[in-house]
């Protein structure tokens, strides 16, 4: 069993949930988180704009509890700082490295290239000779427009945007490495802590501000496309399973295997919010992928069982946004 886990992008949404999951699942595990941002256990690296009020996104209490144990450490190291990275790896001697540091979908090209490709190159170099397994956090976007559904891991990779292209390049960089690599192609993540960069976070932020009894109009982009959503807590569980059980050199989808339209997601969240909302759908159907759903056979063969359905994820996400307006608890104040 792996005991020493290194996570890059540790202060992001998936990184935080993964650290907490590992520390909770194995009382003997230690985790070293690294990231570019200064350590801040109370907050994610992203900000949210709940009800038009931008603020730093607080880390849910259930996670902060685990990060407070002595078995979690964090060091602010940029992936571009090769010496510090190599030093940290030599000192910590990880059994497994989860590479989750990534620039997001909407980031400009230079940032996508430097973070997603050069960052992976630098990490792979630093791991040279370390003997650790590398679990690479990749994305469904490497597949591009589906030629068949559900998307299985053998589906051709032909990304249709810069983000997908850089994630695919990172996969190739990782697979070229001498050591043991597993590729995790993560589909649409949902869950508490998520920013409005993602569609579910955006809906939650808007609906959290609605008051019961006061009618509201919510403006949104096209609702027709379908996606495969998976709870961030299930993503964490899947990544740990992959680290422990996946075949070296394999790729597998991290997804629910359930296809749902953005319209149905919004309806479910409006029901959960229990408010009266008029939906104003605007804009052309985007040139993006119109349908997406994963084949999760490989993930299930590892023994993965989903713990959170979409309704539960949406409820928890909405609740997280609603609590942003509650006064901060003592451990959330300050930096």
């Amino acid at each position, binding site marked *: 069993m792996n005991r020493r886990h290194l996570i890059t992008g540790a202060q992001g949404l998936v990184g935080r949930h993964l650290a907490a999951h590992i520390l909770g699942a194995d009382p003997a595990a230690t985790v070293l988180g690294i990231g570019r941002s200064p350590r801040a256990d109370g907050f994610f690296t992203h*900000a949210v704009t709940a009800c*038009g009020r931008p603020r730093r996104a607080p880390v849910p209490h259930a996670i902060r509890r685990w990060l407070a144990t002595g078995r979690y450490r964090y060091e602010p190291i940029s992936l571009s700082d090769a010496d510090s990275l190599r030093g940290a790896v030599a000192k910590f001697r990880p059994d497994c490295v989860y590479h989750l540091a990534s620039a997001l979908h909407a980031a400009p090209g230079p940032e996508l290239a430097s973070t997603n490709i050069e960052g992976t190159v630098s990490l792979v170099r630093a791991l040279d000779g370390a003997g650790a397994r590398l679990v690479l956090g990749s994305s469904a976007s490497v597949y591009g427009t589906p030629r068949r559904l559900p998307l299985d891991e053998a589906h051709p990779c032909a990304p249709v945007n810069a983000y997908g292209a850089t994630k695919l390049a990172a996969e190739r960089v990782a697979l070229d490495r001498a050591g043991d690599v597993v590729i995790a192609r993560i589909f649409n993540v949902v869950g508490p802590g998520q920013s409005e960069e993602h569609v579910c976070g955006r809906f939650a932020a808007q609906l959290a501000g609605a008051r019961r009894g006061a009618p509201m109009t919510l403006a949104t982009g096209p609702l027709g496309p379908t996606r495969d959503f998976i709870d961030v807590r299930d993503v964490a569980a899947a990544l740990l399973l992959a680290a422990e059980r996946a075949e070296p050199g394999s790729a597998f989808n991290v997804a629910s295997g359930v296809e749902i339209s953005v319209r149905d997601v919004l309806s479910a969240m409006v029901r959960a919010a229990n408010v009266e909302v008029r939906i104003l759908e605007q804009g052309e159907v985007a040139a993006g992928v119109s349908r997406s759903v994963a084949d999760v056979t490989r993930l299930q063969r590892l023994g993965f069982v989903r713990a959170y359905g979409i309704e539960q994820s949406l409820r928890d996400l909405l609740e997280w946004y609603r609590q942003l307006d509650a006064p901060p608890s003592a451990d959330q104040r300050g930096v």
Partner: protein
Amino acid sequence: MTASLQGRRIAVTGAGGFLGGATVAALSDAGASVAALAGPPGQAPASALSAATISFAEICDLDAVLRSLDGADTVVHLAGPPSVAESFRDPIGYVRIHAEGTATVLEACRSRGIRQLVHVSSAEVYGQPLRSPVPEDHPLSARSPYAAGKICAEKLVEAYAHAYGLRCVILRPFSIYGPGASPHSLISRVLSLARAGERIVLRDLRPVRDYCFVTDAADAIARACAFEARSLEIFNLGTMRGASAGEVARILARALGVDAPVGEAGERDRPAASEIYQLVADNRRACSVLQWKPEVTLEEGLRIVAGAR
């Protein structure tokens, strides 16, 4: 928290914009029923907007503006493109939207019997102030087509206040920043360079601005709606603290965990003679009369920006 706007019906123009979205939220939070008017679909992203009603129209389209004001008692006028640099490339367009757009909104307010107009102007109307921090009674001076358009709009508001007794509040925000600000702003430029791991090179490290976080500005707008203006009242929205471009870049780099030197090079995006080197608000009037207080410090605000897109 702001004053109560319970029972009030407020129309907001420019609701699809950066400050517009935060304003709609602040007014709704204070209990108002908000009618949001955004630019024509496709021009401004309104996909994260939620209000009692949302409509889309050109601000110079009187019929459309009249419709959006149906049932409103108060109007917050924010519509208009925000870039000083861009206004040198499209002076005619800027003046049209800021001057003609404001005249259209004023005409609509007059014929709908609106109780109060909150007109959001800009600190650019001071030009290069002779005093710092600059108070509201400082002479106006335009250094860009943007500033000229804003001065023209203020004068139109003044005319309607005097001629028709329309109660008006003019707000002059200084540098409003926060997540979602224009990609051409100083802060957005620093962010994209730092995130791409590049050296932070700016055109000029010297200009000092007064940075006011977007939620604080939106809170001031809500307070201005609740305030009973006598005839015409003018307030600066700023923090009374100036920070140079170089200083902002360094604070932001620290928040991002980037150890990048900050340098100066490249072409200016506005004529050299139009540069304003010091623009800091005397905010005492807003603080005492509107009982407003900016809550978010520059360090905290930039930490929030560092985490957002």
